[in-house]
């Protein structure tokens, strides 16, 4: 009886496989002048020059959850001065238990967000941030 139960456990582990997510492209808000308006990059559902995209892989025909950050800030390359705030981070499929790996065990995940308006006297140059996307069964 005991050995029979253990056999079931081992079989379950092998069938599950490894969940993984890899980045394909970064989230790129492009170019804006000082005093420019806020900008929203939509997730879309397909790769664009602006949205961030990822490939999620794992066992075939399996649902998974997507977890996104609430907000983050982009800092100037010099590491000094004011930052640019980013929030309204949304994905396609949507955050939550909306991911589903296809019969090949794959799904593309797209992420967009909104960055605030640019202040008139904000230091010019290149701003960046690093954010994390998590997937979980």
């Amino acid at each position, binding site marked *: *009886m*005991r050995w029979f*139960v*253990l056999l*079931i*456990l081992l079989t*379950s*582990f092998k069938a*599950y496989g*490894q*969940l*993984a*997510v*890899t*980045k394909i*492209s*970064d*989230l*790129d*808000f*492009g*170019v*804006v*002048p*000082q*005093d*420019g308006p806020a900008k929203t990059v939509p997730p879309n559902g397909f790769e664009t020059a602006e949205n*961030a995209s*990822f490939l999620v892989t*794992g066992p075939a025909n399996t649902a998974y959850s997507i977890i996104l950050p609430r907000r*983050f800030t*982009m800092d100037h390359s010099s590491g000094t001065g004011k930052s*640019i705030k*980013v929030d309204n981070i949304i994905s396609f499929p949507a955050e939550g238990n909306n991911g589903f790996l296809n019969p090949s065990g794959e799904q593309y995940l797209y*992420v967009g*967000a909104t*960055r605030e308006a*640019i202040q*008139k006297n*904000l*230091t*010019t*140059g*290149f*701003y*960046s*941030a*690093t*954010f*994390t*996307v*998590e*997937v*979980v*069964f």
Partner: protein
Amino acid sequence: MLKKRYMAATIALAASYLISQNSFAASTTAQALQQVLAALTITQVSDLDFGTAAAGDAAKTVAPGAAEDAENASFLVAGEANTAYTITLPADGVVTMTTGGGGANETIGVNTFASTPAAGANGLLDGSGQQDLFVGATRDALGASQVAGSYTATFTVDVVY
């Protein structure tokens, strides 16, 4: 005895299921990027001046030219170094110089605005983030009964990255 073993197996199965759930997570990072350019500004340096003419005179064209002269309008455009920008000039039929009340024989139309660099995506700020912009246009022929006086109009030149 059998009941104890069955319970132990069930607990082990449940515990393993929970552990397997917690270990099935993965994450990766990505970057968010933004380039901020210096704000684009345009400042007027000189007006468009058609000079002096008499009633009945033919139409006159002031060329934009490649340098400041007494007739062309000139502007200084400034912003991010080595960056292109787009120039928009007034359309035809929009700018009218007037004198007095602007009634009959008191108006002169100004059309065919042209610039150096040319209108459109032809502006290019230099290494110090500047470029001179020169504007010319054509004023209508003057009527035989054109009222004497100083005629003026205001027009807008627009620049954008």
